[in-house]
């Protein structure tokens, strides 16, 4: 009888991971960003086990999707490996910071940071919709020294696009933080990596997203090995999430190609912001800071805040589109 219950428990974790992987791949934030809140908030799994299972599952999705992208030669492996210097260093510092925080019994801090990172990474994700090619910038010294050039074939535009990156040093700085966040929170931190290559180095969106995809795996591998020796990986949970997230990301990628209506993604943004707010509340709840009400009320407050927030953002972005259309006509 108990065995059946445990099997059901295992299957529910797989089910949760499939949803996390699906939403993560549709929004471009990666499975871990959704998985950690789902495991801690809904399954009552301790944060370190959630982070451990999530980080190692991130490798699976990263490798799975990167294998498809590198074959098409869109991802720039050279620029990616160059930036990995900063992300792997950041991942070591980040995961050691988590170890320190955990030993000091200050894990509530990580909940709050997680929630804030999740909320802030929504901003560039929402903004980027629709923008493909970056504004033209002159090559600088780092362009030549670090050979930040490349080209790829764009299937939609039906032509080969040549590009070059700038401000390599700035990219490395952002990447250090991306690695730090990845090690600290047990996520791939794809949003920060995209920010590093898109905003700092001015690379095209296609190159950015595909390169960050395979970089996530290398960063996560660094953090995972430290997690492993610290005992942050519960094999029962990790086995379920690795399988589940992989399945979810696979279907997410299939569906993503077919979605023509961008509006559907706003529903997922609302879910993500709910998870972000709830993580912050849970962290504050642990130290009884201001918020001392029960879990149920936290849930409802998070839901209400996120619905209001996303509605405002949605209205804002639509208003721009409408006024653009009116000007044209």
């Amino acid at each position, binding site marked *: 009888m108990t065995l059946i219950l445990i099997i059901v428990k295992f299957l529910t974790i797989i089910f949760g991971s499939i949803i996390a992987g699906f939403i993560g791949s549709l929004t471009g934030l990666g499975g871990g960003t959704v998985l950690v809140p789902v495991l801690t908030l809904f399954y009552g799994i301790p944060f370190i086990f959630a982070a451990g299972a999530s980080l190692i599952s991130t490798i699976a999705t990263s*490798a799975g999707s*990167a294998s498809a992208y590198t074959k098409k030669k869109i991802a720039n492996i050279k620029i990616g490996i160059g930036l990995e210097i900063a992300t792997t260093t950041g991942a070591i510092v980040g995961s050691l910071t988590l170890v320190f925080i955990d030993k000091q019994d200050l894990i509530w801090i990580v909940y709050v940071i997680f929630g804030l990172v999740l909320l802030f990474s929504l901003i560039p994700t929402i903004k980027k919709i629709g923008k493909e090619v970056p504004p033209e910038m002159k090559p600088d010294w780092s362009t030549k020294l670090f050979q930040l050039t490349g080209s790829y074939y764009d299937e939609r535009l039906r032509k080969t696009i040549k590009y070059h990156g700038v401000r390599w040093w700035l990219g490395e700085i952002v990447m250090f933080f991306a690695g730090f966040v990845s090690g600290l929170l047990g996520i791939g931190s794809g949003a920060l990596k995209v920010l590093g290559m898109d905003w700092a180095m001015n690379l095209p969106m296609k190159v950015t997203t595909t390169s960050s995809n395979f970089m996530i795996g290398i960063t996560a591998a660094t953090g995972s090995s*430290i997690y492993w020796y610290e005992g942050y990986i519960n094999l029962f949970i990790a086995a379920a999430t690795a399988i589940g997230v992989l399945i979810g990301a696979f279907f997410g990628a299939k569906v993503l190609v077919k979605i023509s209506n961008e509006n559907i993604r706003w529903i997922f943004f609302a879910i993500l912001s709910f998870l972000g707010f709830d993580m912050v509340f849970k962290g504050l709840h642990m130290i009884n800071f201001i918020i001392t009400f029960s879990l149920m009320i936290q849930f409802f407050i998070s839901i209400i805040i996120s619905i209001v927030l996303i509605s405002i953002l949605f209205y804002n972005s639509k208003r721009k589109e409408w006024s653009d259309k009116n000007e044209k006509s």
Partner: protein
Amino acid sequence: MKNHDDEVIISYFLKAGVLISVSFIIVGVIILFVKNGGDGFTLSQMSNYNYALAHGIDSKSVSLNKILSGLSAIDGLYFITVGLWVLIFTPITVVFIGWVSFLDDKNYLYVGMASIVLFNLFFAMLVVPRFLI
């Protein structure tokens, strides 16, 4: 990268790594459920997260030295362990292939940069754990 076949090789390595890893994990999970546990722990102990947290039933308790004996004893936990470590090593092969191809191109700046990345990876695996325990 001059030789563009590298990207195809990398893509195959990634795919193979994920497939091998996932099959080890699935086999391990099946054995775990059939044998009702592994490595001296019962399933109900493992799946009770707070109990597992308090009693150290996690990756720390699985000794990597015992992988071979664990596999030959058909212990599900060790199959999952192998699967997860194959997963950790999968992206590292990408850096390694990159390193070789940079050397091939005589692009020594990038040979050096890839070496730093590899150093970081092995630093995290071999050096950092010694300080933690």
